């Protein structure tokens, strides 16, 4: 009996389980849930240039994404996820939105502000104006008007100079709001939109302009919307399914492998916790396919344990001592486990590369679960068993699922 080793084993296990039990509830609460689990919607837009002949540049695409984000922020939506994809796509994910229709309308509406010459050529675009620069002011007669600030005062001066005596029409999308004539070159970089606005109309116009013009036209290509209740239900059911599956597996491991089975159960629990921790640290979003991958990952984690213990059992049967069985068994099984894991990572990387949205989440979870599994189910598992064997407490082969009669003489 080696008390030191046993104490080390117990200390590791108790501390680990205490940390797991103590931190899990708050970790789980802090995990970001995907919109399939908490309700919300996702739209994939395809961006096309507003005018024919132009191209969608990476800059204009990014700018559009930023404008969308600003709009979502203005609507008070928490954590909008807006990402560009490929050369001409923008994916918008908004969770926990109550008034979906309204939000969708505001988000996708182009609100493209243009100043056009009489022949229709666009002289100034929404992007030429200072963000959030629109204000409602009053003219001498007390009529409300909207002023916008230009980023480049010189540009406005040039444009107005070239159009003296002509009109410079102001369009919101394809609707003309005002068609003022230019009397002189305007310097100072402030443009006025006047018309016979009521105060409400002026405020509405100001908000629309401040919402930010979208440099590109957006068309919905794919939409997914999940009701909050449905999401909650999915989360609940799937987590429950995962827990049932995991519980069965842990019992199965203990019956099958006795002492190492208990170690496996401990490492599988640690593995699950560590994976949640990684998720939390990365601020990753957990989706339904993600949970599925998570749960399947537990199955895979068990595999690493099984390969190792089966190998150790074999070594015990061949007549080696427990300690050398452990050494030979874990050494011989390591290569197999690594090969098996690497091929799985390859498949997951391809999945990540090809997939989108939820599938990417699934693939990423698979990759992480494999990496975490290597740490816990190979190294931690090995360390714990070694401590147990060295404690000399569990010396009988039957503790490892091997019958005395099966052991060959050396």
């Amino acid at each position, binding site marked *: 009996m080696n008390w030191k080793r046993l104490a080390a084993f117990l200390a590791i296990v108790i501390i680990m389980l205490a940390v797991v039990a103590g931190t899990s509830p708050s970790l789980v609460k802090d995990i970001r849930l995907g919109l399939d689990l908490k309700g919300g919607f996702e739209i994939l837009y395809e961006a096309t240039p507003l005018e024919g002949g132009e191209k969608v540049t990476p800059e204009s695409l990014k700018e559009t994404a930023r404008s969308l984000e600003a709009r979502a922020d203005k609507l008070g939506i928490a954590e909008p996820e807006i990402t560009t994809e490929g050369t001409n796509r923008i994916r918008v994910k908004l969770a926990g939105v109550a008034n979906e229709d309204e939000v969708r309308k505001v988000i996708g509406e182009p609100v493209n502000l243009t100043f056009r010459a009489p022949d229709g050529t666009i002289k100034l675009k929404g992007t030429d104006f200072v963000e959030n620069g629109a204000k409602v002011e009053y003219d001498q007669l007390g009529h409300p008007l909207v002023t916008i600030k230009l980023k480049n005062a010189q540009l406005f001066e040039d444009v107005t100079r070239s159009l003296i005596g002509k009109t410079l029409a102001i369009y919101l999308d394809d609707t003309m709001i005002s068609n003022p004539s230019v009397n002189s070159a305007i310097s100072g970089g402030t443009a006025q939109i006047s018309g016979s606005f009521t105060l409400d109309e002026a405020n509405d116009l100001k908000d629309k302009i401040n919402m930010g013009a979208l440099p590109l036209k957006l068309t919905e290509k794919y939409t*997914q919307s999940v009701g909050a209740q449905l999401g909650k239900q999915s989360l609940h059911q799937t987590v429950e399914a995962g827990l049932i599956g995991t519980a069965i597996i842990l019992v199965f491991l203990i019956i099958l492998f006795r002492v190492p089975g208990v170690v496996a159960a401990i490492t599988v629990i640690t593995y699950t916790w560590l994976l949640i921790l990684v998720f939390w640290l990365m601020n990753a979003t957990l989706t339904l396919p993600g949970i599925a991958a998570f749960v399947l990952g537990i199955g895979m984690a068990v595999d690493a344990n099984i390969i190792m213990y089966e190998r150790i059992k074999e070594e015990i049967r061949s007549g080696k001592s427990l300690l050398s069985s452990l050494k030979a068994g874990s050494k011989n099984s390591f290569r197999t486990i690594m090969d098996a894991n690497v091929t799985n990572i390859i498949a997951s990387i391809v999945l990540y590369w090809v997939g989108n949205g939820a599938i990417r989440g699934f693939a990423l979870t698979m990759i992480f679960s494999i990496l975490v599994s290597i740490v816990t189910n190979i190294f931690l598992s090995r360390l714990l068993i070694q401590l147990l064997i060295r404690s000399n407490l569990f010396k009988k082969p039957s503790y490892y699922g091997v019958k005395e009669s099966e052991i060959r003489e050396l």
Partner: protein
Amino acid sequence: MNFNTKIRFDFIKHSNKFFIFSGILTLLGIISLLVFQLNYGVDFKAGTNMDITVGKTTTQAESIELLKQAGYDKVKLTVGGNNNERVSVRFDEVLPQDKVNVVKKAFTDKFGAKASFEVNVVSPDMAQELGKKAIIAIVVASAAIMLYVIIRFEWRFSLAAIIAILYDAFFVVTMFSLFHFEVNLPFIAAVLTTIGYSINDKIVIFDRIRENLRFGKYKTKEQLSEMVNASLWQTMARNIYTVAAVLIVAVSLFLFGSESIKLFALAKIFGLASGAYSSICIASPLWLILKSKEKKKVAAKPKTNP
């Protein structure tokens, strides 16, 4: 060399039967694909998919009536879930938001605020692209795995493994075609991870074969067969335990998990079962055939090596 394992079943001796069995299954799959084709979900076929949880038990007739009122009389509709609370409707057309709202309203009017919706709308070009990407994914994943196995093992293992893996992937597709289950994006994820798991199984066995190969000399085909058989039985316990463990998870996801991942879980169950079978009955005998062909060549050479 004496392998001290109780060989209960000679897999190699019966390998022709397995080949024939799998050949028939594959043929069945091809026929099924030609006749029934695949039941593509909106992910691959454009259109609108609505999953509605209504909060109480409902019937198909009830939902059909509601959809008729909303102006849709030719839609695919299934009622399922716990206590038949969930209605899945598939429209072949891309419904704009206002039309979706009409359908939503029909259901909320009938079932109250408890009705919760999941709506997926996929445009045609997006669907086509997803389909293309799925095929690319399977080809690239297979190629990458093949390359890895060639580097870590040798081409014979790689070839045998890849044939068995593609067979597994095809088996899942066959089952989905035969039973007309819906093929969507999670299905592709299931097929791809099947590839991953399946290679996992094969590698564990191949690893053992390679190890046994190192420790003994096998001159005749009989000796090689015996060695493969022994390797299979040496890894049998692990094969069974692992497949049981992962199957337990997949089955509990299927039985207790949410509706949206049921088909994914089912695809996994098919894939795992097929993977376990093909590792033992297809991949290993295939390797043996490839390997014994090499042996013959060596034996035919004059004695140059002592």
